[in-house]
């Protein structure tokens, strides 16, 4: 009977991936480190390309500054909200680049960044981090900044991943359960 039950569970797990079963938490920071490395490559490539990669429009991007003392004082929900909103804004800014004609090199970096952001969202979901809730009140409640160049955009991208996102993942409560 026990064997049959276990077999049934296994079958259900395979056949029903779309159910809201909790994903296995991805606590290994090497997953995020991989995305960060790719973001480094993009930033290094775009640092060199300044004139050709400039655009007329401005991008709204999140603030990336982290004060360790301040960050430690925040609770997990506040940290999560800051990270999720920042990812959302960043994603929008980079996605807006896809529409415009860019060089092949730039296009590949743009595509990689967008897919990495999507993967990071999955990782956050696996850690049971609350999803992004758009602010109901004003648009500029959260701390944002504006950048005018693509290189600055990717600088913000890498700084955000290295800073807030990583600190949040490293401090995820799910990963520290059972660890004294």
């Amino acid at each position: 009977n026990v064997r049959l039950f276990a077999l049934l569970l296994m079958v259900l797990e395979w056949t029903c991936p779309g159910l809201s079963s909790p994903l296995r938490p991805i606590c290994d920071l090497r997953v995020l480190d991989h995305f960060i490395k790719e973001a480094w490559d993009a930033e290094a490539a775009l640092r060199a390309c300044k004139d050709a990669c400039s655009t007329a429009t401005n991008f709204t991007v999140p603030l990336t500054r982290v004060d360790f003392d301040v960050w430690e004082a925040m609770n997990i929900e506040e940290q999560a909200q800051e990270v999720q909103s920042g990812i959302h804004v960043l994603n929008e800014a980079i996605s807006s680049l896809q529409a415009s004609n860019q060089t092949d090199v730039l296009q590949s970096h743009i595509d990689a960044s967008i897919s990495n952001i999507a993967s990071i969202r999955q990782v956050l979901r696996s850690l049971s981090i609350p999803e992004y809730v758009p602010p109901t009140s004003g648009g500029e409640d959260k701390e944002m900044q504006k950048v005018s160049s693509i290189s600055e955009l990717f600088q913000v991208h890498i700084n955000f991943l290295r800073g807030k996102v990583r600190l949040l993942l490293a401090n995820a409560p799910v990963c520290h359960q059972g660890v004294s």
Partner: protein
Amino acid sequence: MTKMRSDRLKIVFMLCLAFITTGGQHFESKVAQLLRDETEDIKCFVEVKDLTCFWEEEEERNNLHDQYTFTYSYENKNKMACVVSSLSLLASNKTVFYCKLPKTPFFTPLDVQVFRDGRMLYSRSLNAENFWFLDPPRNLTVMSSGKEGQLNVSWLPPLLKYIDDSMIYEVRYAVEGNNMGKVEVIKVSTMLVLLGLQPDTRYKVWVRVKPDGVAYTGYWSAWTEPVLGVTQPSDVDPLIMLLVLFIGLILCLLSMTVILSHHKFLLKKLWPDIPSPEHKFPGLFTVYKGDFKEWMSQNNSSMWGRSVHVYTEELPSPLEVLSEVSLTSHGTSQREERQAVEEDEEKESERSDSGLTDRWREPPQAHCLVEQLRALQENPESLSQSLLLQSHETYVTLNQNSQGDDERQVDDVFEETLPLQTLFTTAGTTSLNTSHSDLGSLQQSSGSGRLSSQSSFEYPNHTWPPKGPGYTYMAVADSGVSMDYSPMSSSRIAEPLGRHRMYTNDYKNEIFLHKWPLSGQHTQSGSESCMGPGW
């Protein structure tokens, strides 16, 4: 109460002093190192949580502190000022000015500027998280792992909460006293097992740390103070090795001694000598260079008798007197006959193609025998009477003439010629009927003169047909090496029946090959001869 309070204050003061000095030591060393390595004007590093930026003094001034202004800004905010301090480096005798930011913003570009007297001296934009300058790892310990050539190295990571999982370490080790060392890089883990070390050796180990460069980057920390470790001695005891070598040496010596003492025996077994008949033919190879004819001619008279003695395995025994009645008239002794026959043989070996009859008469020694033969031929009947047909002895007849009717000529069958045919008796008389059994050992000459031989068994009824001028009957025994002219018993003869080799001489006489009844065995013609050039 006040005494206790003062004591406490003293203790606290001492601790603070100790803390400052140690921190100062690290700080000063870092400053000194960056002063050497960093090329930027404003050199910055993050120690624990705060960024420190310093610059070198340009020229000697009197009022140092009032000259410089340090400002920093980020995120397009207003510039903030930082308190400038000075530090005198004792080692390099230099003075630096530094500023330690109170609240360092990370993961954002930071703009720092140095002003002197209102004028901007230096400017720089940097991200604080890229300039970690950590302290060396603490509590470095090196221990023997229990296995040969291994050392266990362990240390404590720097006390930093956020980057403790982003560290990379470098372990350097070298034999004590040797400057050439090896470096091992290890990520995150704070222990390492060094492999492939020499046994029973003292090693020095150093460790340093750096952020791994993914999320945080920075400078390599200073090396720790070296820690000594000793590897385990090798398992194989040198004493045991020496003993093993010594015993091996002794065994080698013993075996060498045995081999040398029995080397002749071993040599015989492994490399046997090929037997050489040289010793039987004195002077054949040395003097005459293998020319047998020459040797025979030289040694004929003197050596013949002796050689016969040498070759034959048995001493020739006296001939039987075949016919006492007929031979008494001739008065020949047995020994004379035998000797004559032997001499005849010797003579016949020298003959070329010619009739036996002729040769027979030529040598003077054989003359007596010829006379005897003649006498015998004249009295064949008497001879037949005295034939020892009743006995089991072998007889050989020498037929001088060619009586072709009953005689069988086997010409050119055999290359070598035999004067005599050895006839061996077999048990019983069953073989008497057949007269065509092949002895095969008789060889014929190609000469005109012929010797025929007949077995005594061919004439069971004592009918010895007259064959011609004369016959000489002799008892012949073949021991396989040579013909032995002696009365033989059947037992002696019958045994080597199938294997006997005819005694061949270089006779050129024709000899009839009579097929004698044997026990069905075919005796081969001897390709080897007892005496002759074949040797």
